[in-house]
């Protein structure tokens, strides 16, 4: 005790050395003042940032690129020339060029266009993300199946050398690069990879390419001439169904945007696509946006927070991929009317919700399909074509998205799918069949 203070005799025995003295008082006072900083900071942020969260539909500068702005009417997808520094896209047949509309990243000519056939069975490496969802599980399974079939045909040898990260909570691009370099050092001829970050992989892929190792990427684009990217057009994949839904609403209504894992290039491109489409519809008002991190339960939780503070009618939810089931679940659990959900990257669960609503009251929306099995099959085929010396004309092979509408919903909805079903959608439209892939190679007959 450093100073005497009046103390109740009843409390004295239990207080002993912990009685509040001047120093304690000062600390406690400081604690109250500092604790209040939460409210002050919140208020400050509200003043300077609150309005920033609402995207003005007309303020995005729609469809701007190096070759200028191409505006579109409400309900239509903007036409934007791709970044084509080598003229590789322009050299493709006209109908293929449409798939590159607004492609978000540079499309290079492939460094493997003049590669000769390996002349022996290839050693294959496989670098992949954790099997944390149905898509990833299907990709891994299909790659193993394709590898076994290729081995039987004498195209590959040995075992599929895998470097699959295990924990989505702790995985990093650095961890993947380390595994990728191990594959290179192990002497493989070709590496199939789905990069966690396409940009982070560029140096490693360049270095491997100079050693003659071919890299074939699925999903994200690696901006290296030594990578052959097999990917959906991330812009069209979001813009196409969003434009359709905007048209269904006659360009009027309230919109909520559910973003993915911000910082990923596909998310940035998809978000730009939403903004570009909405920019053409001045009567579509964006109420706000939430961060769903590409995880349906996270999307549901964040949407519940948003809905708790927005009682007004919501007409459209533009989610940036694979979170449709979380969006449907959020509205269902609150008993509110379900808006038109842009079901990009649809799942069996989201399509089951769509079907349930359609059956009940004629609900209509739009989405995009594709599943891990068919994508992995095309991915593996592309790699084998490169190794056979078929000569890829372009470093990125993409396609126009498989748009799901009321007309073809049944083609994508698995039989008996339930709202709680975590599975993937059915094939629906073929995803890069052999005849389609052949058009991207100089000598497709060699494979």
């Amino acid at each position, binding site marked *: 005790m450093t100073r005497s*203070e*009046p*103390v109740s005799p*009843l*409390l004295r025995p*239990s207080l*002993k050395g*912990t*009685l*509040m003295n001047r*120093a304690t008082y000062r600390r*406690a*006072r400081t*604690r*109250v003042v*500092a*604790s209040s*900083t*939460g*409210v002050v*900071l*919140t208020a400050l942020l*509200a003043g300077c*940032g*609150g309005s*920033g*969260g609402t995207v003005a539909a007309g303020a995005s500068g729609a469809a701007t690129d190096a070759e200028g702005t191409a505006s579109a009417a409400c309900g239509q997808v903007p036409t934007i020339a791709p970044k084509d520094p080598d003229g590789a896209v322009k050299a493709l047949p006209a109908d293929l060029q449409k798939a590159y509309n607004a492609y978000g990243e540079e499309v290079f000519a492939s460094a493997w266009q003049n590669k000769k056939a390996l002349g022996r069975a290839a050693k294959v490496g496989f670098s992949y993300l*954790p*099997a*944390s*969802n149905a898509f990833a*599980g299907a990709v891994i399974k299909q790659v193993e199946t394709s590898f076994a079939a290729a081995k039987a045909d004498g195209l590959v040898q040995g075992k599929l050398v895998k470097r699959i990260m*295990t*924990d*989505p*909570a702790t995985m990093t691009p650095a961890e993947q690069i380390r595994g990728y370099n191990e594959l290179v050092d192990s002497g493989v001829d070709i590496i199939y990879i789905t990069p966690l970050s396409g940009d982070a992989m560029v140096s490693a892929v360049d270095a491997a390419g100079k050693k003659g190792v071919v890299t074939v990427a699925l999903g994200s684009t690696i901006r290296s001439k030594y990578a052959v990217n097999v990917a959906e057009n991330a812009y069209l994949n979001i813009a196409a169904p969003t434009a359709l839904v905007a048209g269904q609403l006659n360009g009027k209504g309230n919109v909520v945007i559910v973003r993915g894992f911000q910082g990923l290039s596909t998310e940035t491109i998809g978000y730009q696509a939403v903004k570009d489409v909405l920019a053409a519809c001045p009567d579509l008002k964006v109420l*706000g946006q939430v961060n769903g991190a590409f*995880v*349906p*339960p996270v999307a*549901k*939780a964040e949407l*519940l*927070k948003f*809905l*708790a*503070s*927005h*009682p007004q009618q919501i007409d459209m939810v533009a989610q940036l991929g694979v979170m449709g*089931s*979380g969006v449907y*679940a959020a509205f269902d*659990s*609150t*008993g509110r009317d379900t808006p038109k959900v842009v079901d990009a990257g649809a799942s069996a*669960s989201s399509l089951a919700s769509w079907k349930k609503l359609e059956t009940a009251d004629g609900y209509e929306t739009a989405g995009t399909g594709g599943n891990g099995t068919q994508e992995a099959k095309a991915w593996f085929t592309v790699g084998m074509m490169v190794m056979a010396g078929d000569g890829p004309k372009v470093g990125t092979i993409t396609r126009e998205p498989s748009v799901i509408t009321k007309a073809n919903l049944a083609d994508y909805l698995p039989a008996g799918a*339930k709202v*709680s079903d*975590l*599975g993937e959608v059915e094939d629906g439209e073929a995803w890069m069949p052999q005849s389609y892939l052949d058009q991207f190679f100089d000598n497709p007959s060699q494979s």
Partner: protein
Amino acid sequence: MMTTQQGSLDTAAPLAPDITAPAPPEGLSAAQRLLSLQRRFPLVQLLLTVAVLGWGAAAMPGFLDPTSLRSVLVLCALTGLASIGQTLVVLIRGIDLSLAGFIVAGAVTVTQFGDVPGVPLPVMLVLAVVCGGATGGLVGYLCHRFAIHPIIVTLAAGSIAVGVTAVLSGGGTGAGAPGWVVRLSAPMSSTFGLPVPPVVVIWGLAVVAVSVLLHRTRSGRRLLATGASPVAAELAHISTRKVWVTVYAVSAALAILAGVVLAGFAGNVDNRLGNPYLFQSIAAVVLGGTAFGGPGSYTRTTVGVLLLTTVSTVLVGLGFQEADQQILNGVVILAAMALYGRERRLRDQV
């Protein structure tokens, strides 16, 4: 009879509500009394929660509608249930990063193993809880026996839990949680006719149960004594190793059960389900004012959960960007850590 600075360890009563914080002496000014009260109860956090609620109500019409409040309460309950184990672990100067892994294990159990022929779901759940508890207990033993920091061991345990779950389930995706599990956390569901979602009622009961356990039982007092001073606790013949083993076992078992409830909320499960709750559980404990090794309580964590969720909901509603929210969350947690984390060292100097 053994005694510590926190009182008798062999008797369950009489005890103050928070035995690590003194009651205010008489003769103090009103301000001093308030500050003294703050030491025993997270008054500022509670007032902040009310203020943020008021702000949200003023800024957003309909924010305090019953439907909205039920949604927010469900989110609070989910985070609150996931934070029980973290609170107990922090009170013994530990931390539990395996939480996310065990949540996934519990969620997968209810979604994937609910229809195993001849094995009813309750049996599967008991098995999962026992296995999780055993793994958690092993974590506590390893940390204590070999003086390994819990960050390392619990991180590994979380990965193992996710991996083993994936192996046992064959990497399958399951068919979703049973209807009764889904209804537990549906904002529009009711409990015995009351318009309160069952998960909120469960959380309320958990708050009472954990508070009683911590502050009204011998086991709870041993736990608090272990956190306050492991050396003194050993001198008082408390087996701190047994406390560590028990606390980590309980934390893992509770995470398994939290995973069951979260599976119902999520509808379907993948192995990222638990990730958000790992950060939120730590943030809620810290925001509530529980320091590593105590003082603290689950009541504090409960208030931390309310504040965290309310602030987050208001920020989302007002259209803040993710980056804004992250900045604010970080600053508030740092402020809380600076204040409550400092208290322990100062108190130990007395």
